[in-house]
């Protein structure tokens, strides 16, 4: 702790509290409520330098910090029906959509990009929480399907980074059916023998958590992220008890065996690179070599005398790794 942080900053804080805080210069950490200078926040990958709280970040920012030199290509996603139910609550859904599009500059709540990570081709689908809570409707389903196809096409691992409250209510049943749809999308990647890694970020709940987000070959989670199926308010209303400490946080899921690792944002890129290297570059000992057929077919050899000779000269059995 130096003179600057122990003396000057608290002073600045008290000064600033009296006036309107300029949003672009100082941010208040939602966890410890300390003020963070925007440059410090940026440098620290939007992790609070005081308490380590991981703030939510924009989808594009995610991609910047994951790909080599922040270089990647976003892919254009197929258009879907913009307001398939013609839904209206207090406001028209079509208006909510337009507002979200204007605010975020995105078409919908998920973007898909490909590029290199540690030199390896990787496809990433990232969610934008600022776009209607990252909710999943037709367009997000389309993004996952496109990401899965691209990964298979490129023979590349797929990384999905949800940040989503769940299904998009305004698309009704059509958002619900995105659960099976996205499940198929990621399973196509797995069936092609490619790694599918999910990075669960704050929040991953509802229909998103109960589909592709919980199906990763490997599941990573950001510290403190809320991950679960039911919303905390709903649970509270059902059980009428205080929720346990740290309930539905990444660390809680880790303790309950639901995720492989809780990875701080600063370590995410290197962790992904290491995982892909270990899963995909197996090294000489890990190469799969087919055994000669007769070695597997023991009963047949016993039952039919001379079958061994008929199978031709036995090739030497490779040493097992």
């Amino acid at each position, binding site marked *: 702790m130096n003179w600057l942080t122990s003396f000057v900053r608290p002073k600045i804080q008290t000064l600033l509290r009296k006036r309107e805080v300029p949003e672009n210069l100082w941010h208040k950490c939602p966890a410890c409520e300390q003020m963070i200078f925007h440059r410090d926040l940026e440098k620290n990958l939007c992790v609070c330098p005081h308490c380590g709280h991981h703030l939510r970040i924009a989808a594009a920012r995610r991609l910047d910090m994951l790909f080599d030199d922040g270089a990647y290509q976003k892919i254009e996603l197929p258009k879907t029906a913009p307001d398939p139910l013609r839904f209206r*609550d*207090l406001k028209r859904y079509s208006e909510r959509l337009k507002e979200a599009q204007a605010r975020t500059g995105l078409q919908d709540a998920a973007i898909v990009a490909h590029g290199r990570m540690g030199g390896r081709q990787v496809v990433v689908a990232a969610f934008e929480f600022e776009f209607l809570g990252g909710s999943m409707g037709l367009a997000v389903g389309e993004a996952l399907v496109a990401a899965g196809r691209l990964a298979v096409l490129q023979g590349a691992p797929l990384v999905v980074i949800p940040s989503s409250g769940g299904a998009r*209510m305004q698309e*009704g049943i059509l958002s619900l059916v995105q659960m099976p749809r996205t499940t198929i999308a990621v399973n196509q990647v797995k069936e092609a023998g490619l790694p599918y890694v999910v990075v669960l970020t704050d929040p991953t709940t509802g*229909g998103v958590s*109960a589909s592709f987000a919980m199906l990763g070959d490997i599941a990573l989670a950001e510290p403190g992220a809320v991950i679960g199926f039911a919303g905390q308010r709903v649970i509270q209303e059902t059980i009428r008890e205080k929720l346990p400490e740290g309930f539905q946080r990444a660390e809680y899921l880790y303790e309950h065996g639901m995720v492989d690792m809780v990875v701080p944002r600063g370590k995410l890129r290197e962790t992904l690179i290491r995982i892909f290297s270990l899963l995909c570059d197996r090294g000489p000992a890990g190469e799969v070599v087919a055994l000669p057929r007769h070695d597997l077919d023991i009963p047949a050899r016993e039952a039919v005398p001379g079958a061994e000779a008929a199978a031709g000269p036995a090739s030497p059995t490779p040493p097992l790794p």
Partner: protein
Amino acid sequence: MRHFLDFEKPIAELEGKIEELRHLGDDGRLSIAEEVGKLQEKVTRLIRQTYSRLTPWQRTQVARHPDRPHFSHYVARLVEGFTPLAGDRAFGEDRAVVGGIGRFRGHSAVILGHEKGADTEGRLRHNFGMARPEGYRKARRLMRLAERFRLPVISFVDTPGAYPGVDAEARGQAEAIARSIETCLEIRVPFVAAIIGEGGSGGAVAIAAADRVLMLEHAIYSVISPEGCASILWRSGDKAEEAAEALKLTAADLERLGAIDGVVKEPLGGAHREPEAAIDAVGEALEAALAGLRAVDGGVLRAQRRDKYLRMGSLGLSG
């Protein structure tokens, strides 16, 4: 005690009057019999009128009607030799999801579904049809069993949703649902689902991602309950009626949207008035759907099922 819904009040009044007259009619006077006959006709007309223009919110109430036939009623009437199988082989037995093997129309099948329970005790035992992870893990186990013995899977969907509790979350509710959906899409056997009451969100789709999804005329199937939707989007639970309208959760709407494959007509006045007729109608529809699937190769079935869901990106109301 018969249970009448709010909008059924005029029907209840008329039926009450008929009851009264019948009691009076012990002396066998013809005029009372005539009167009863007339009232009976009037009641039938009233029921037809009421049920031909149910609002989505009224339909929601019908879908949740306590006298509506539940999973166990369907099994008792449609399945021979039903042998329930219990447990998820990991933690426990969840009675919100019941499943087992039995014979449907002469063919062995795996039958599973949500059970809401018929009386207070039953509702508590079955947790109102709200499953914990164990329920979905059991469903998954049974679907795998079906695949191993090449039995078709028939599921009955009737749940307000997955149970929102601390224990359920601690044991991986989201993962359990995700894996159940995954298994629905993987099995290489015919799979038909019938939404018989409430199809509540992820807890419903967990056992409903099938080759054919049938739905009773007054059942509902939705991403969120109208009450839940209203409290989030309208910031008031009182707007459930509007939410039910907006969500397009009725069988007719869902068929129009392409999210389900067929609607099964209910007896006049809803399945709760004539449970046996409703169950038989579902039985016929299930058999018709299965008949078209039995001869299809398992791998082809799986591929077609996956295609069906992959194509669900281009849906929506046209125009």
